[in-house]
């Protein structure tokens, strides 16, 4: 019973077609079964553009403005993708195009949280050596590690900088990160460095006593 009405009424519309103007039995255009083409043919071509001195001048203004904006420090390029290894040719390729002079906004007009930590880092680097001298903040682990790595380290200062930088979690400097990585690898292992035996002494020793058995 319920299905009958539905099946019967499929060919009919809900309103009287004559009122809208379609007479009975009139040929309607075939219904479209696919989406319209991407570039449909246009019966009416668009009107040509306005030409004149004003239009040309505004065009020149627009293009110059766009070019100028690209050179200003407001145009932020995404951070250069990190390369796995530094290559010699990088110096001669696009690496030379550094950011133009960084602009210095008036920080009184911006919320304090937007101020980047650059200044703090510079201060850290400058005060780190003095920190070492002025504040002998005794960190026992630090002293042990320092003594052990004294032979391997060429520059004690850089390691102190890394201590200071480690405290700053929002550090983004790529230089700092590279050094940081090395230091982390060398200092955060549990093994004392002097225990590492790279095998040279072993081979040297065995050359002397050839008559002893090697297990």
């Amino acid at each position: 019973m319920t299905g009958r009405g539905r099946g019967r009424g499929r060919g009919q519309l809900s309103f009287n077609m004559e009122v809208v103007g379609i007479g009975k039995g009139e040929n309607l255009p075939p219904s479209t079964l696919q989406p319209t083409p991407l570039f449909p043919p246009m019966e009416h071509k668009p009107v040509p553009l306005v030409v004149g001195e004003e239009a040309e001048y505004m065009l020149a203004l627009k293009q110059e403005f766009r070019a100028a904006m690209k050179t200003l420090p407001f145009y932020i390029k995404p951070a250069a993708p990190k390369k796995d290894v530094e290559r010699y040719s990088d110096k001669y390729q696009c690496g030379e195009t550094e950011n133009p002079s960084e602009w210095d906004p008036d920080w009184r007009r911006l919320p304090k949280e937007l101020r980047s930590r650059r200044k703090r880092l510079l201060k850290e680097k400058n005060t780190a050596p003095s920190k070492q001298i002025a504040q002998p903040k005794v960190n026992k682990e630090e002293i042990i590690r320092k003594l052990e790595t004294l032979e391997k380290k060429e520059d004690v200062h850089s390691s102190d900088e890394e201590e200071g930088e480690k405290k700053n979690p929002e550090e983004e400097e790529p230089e700092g990160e590279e050094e940081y990585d090395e230091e982390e690898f060398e200092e955060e292992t549990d093994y004392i460095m002097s225990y590492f035996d790279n095998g040279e002494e072993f081979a040297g020793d065995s050359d002397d006593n050839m008559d002893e058995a090697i297990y």
Partner: protein
Amino acid sequence: MTTQEVRLCGLLLQEHFGGVVEKVGTHLIRSGALTLRAIVQETNMSLDLVKKSLCVLVQHGMCVFGAGRRGPGWPVEYCVCVERVLYMLRYPRYIYTAKSLYGDTGELIVEEILQRGQMTMSCAVKTVADRLTQNMEDGCSMDYSEVVSAFSNLVETHFLQRCPLVAEQGSAPPPTTSTLETAPPPPAITCPPTPESNPDCYRLPQINLRGRGKRRRSSEDGEDQRGGKKPKLDNGQPVGDEDIYWQVNFARFHLHFRDQGIISAVACKLDQTSSEIVRTMLRMSEVTTQPSAAHTQPLSANEIFRALPPSYSIGRPILDQYLTLLVDDPMEFVGKSGDSGGGMYVVNLHRALANLARATLESVVQERFGSRSARIFRLLLRKRHLEQKQVEDFAMIPAKEAKDMLYTLLSENLVQLQEIPKTPDHAPSRTFYLYTVTQLPTARMLLQRCYKTVSNLIERRLFETKENKRHLEKSQRIEAILASLQTTGAEPTQLQEVEEMITAPERQQLEALRNHINKLDSSENQVDESIFLLESYIKSAGTTR
């Protein structure tokens, strides 16, 4: 924020500020007001880049910040203003208007301020003077006082205004603590302080600025004035206006464009003299009319007669005839509001905008669907609701074609169908079906189509540039080589050799590319004119209702 608006904002931000700012900006537009941490989390970008992008957006006035919904103790929230981002499309028009009103100096001042977002007066004057000096002959330089006078003119006519004051951030807390705004209650993010709330909005600071522009020689690149925002102080003394930043007053420019539109419409419809009369009336009521007023203050015919420019010396009775003509015109630009003083006349601003928008709609229908469809459209606009049969009769178009056209317009949503039932059960055989055109919703729809058009134009331009990137780079390199050879004084044969490095077909391709890009740019400018008209109409209709 509609999809098309967001898309267009994204493209504009990308063109002017790069992909990073675009990502942050579109995310803020989509999500409303967010804190810094939320932005960093949701966009997966580094904190440093997000901070820089926000600084750039705030500098250019596109982003406002303030205490969030939770109150002053909680982190600051940021909100992007979509309207302001869309104004970037109109920058060439602002600069051109400044040039036509105040000459090259005015043009450069407005251009510099638009590029930097906000500037102090001293910085602007120095930069513009240097730029003008660069273009002058050797030995001449631009005096600062001329630039200062152009700047003052711009401020007096309200084209430039002081940036709104920023609420105090409290006594300097150490950087590690959170930003507590302990001072006088900062503005909530929903109602940032308007520039007009400052009574000194248009007051020039008293600064002692003397000097002449400097010519930048090619050897000195440390003197690059474009990067630094702080002025290069000659003797280290502050100039006295460090805290006062100036920005472009877009609303004033828009009023100017609106007036220009009305005047040119009158000139097209009637004649030059009538347009001069309307121009005089608008000029007289510049200061007395509110920006959102529906019509200007009444002006008497005597006043208009006295204020007419001397080059248009027409007799008093002729002026009266012109005014009567203007009042009787069906476009209703000018209305008569009284008889004292020889007749009191007003310019009907909102009605003029509505008529201009209507003309735009009609022209769109005419160019897309033909003049007969346009006739049907105009008929429906005038008669509001018509039945199928009545449309055929009034438009004098055969039934079959009229039906076809109506259905095409209906499918494009330019025409709507209104049902009026005769009986409560809405039976189809006993219901009137009337065709109607509603101006305001149709204008809104057309505005969105315009945004989509501009987005498509920009994308096509970027595509064309990307396709021919190799050619463009090659030609740029060759131009650079040529320029350097010329400065070092090379022989013509060498120059010829270098020029021949670009082959003839490549040259043709480059020429075609340049042509395409110019056309696309021009089209953007032209579509922007329609956008401005429709936006003004929609805004005015919103206030009158």
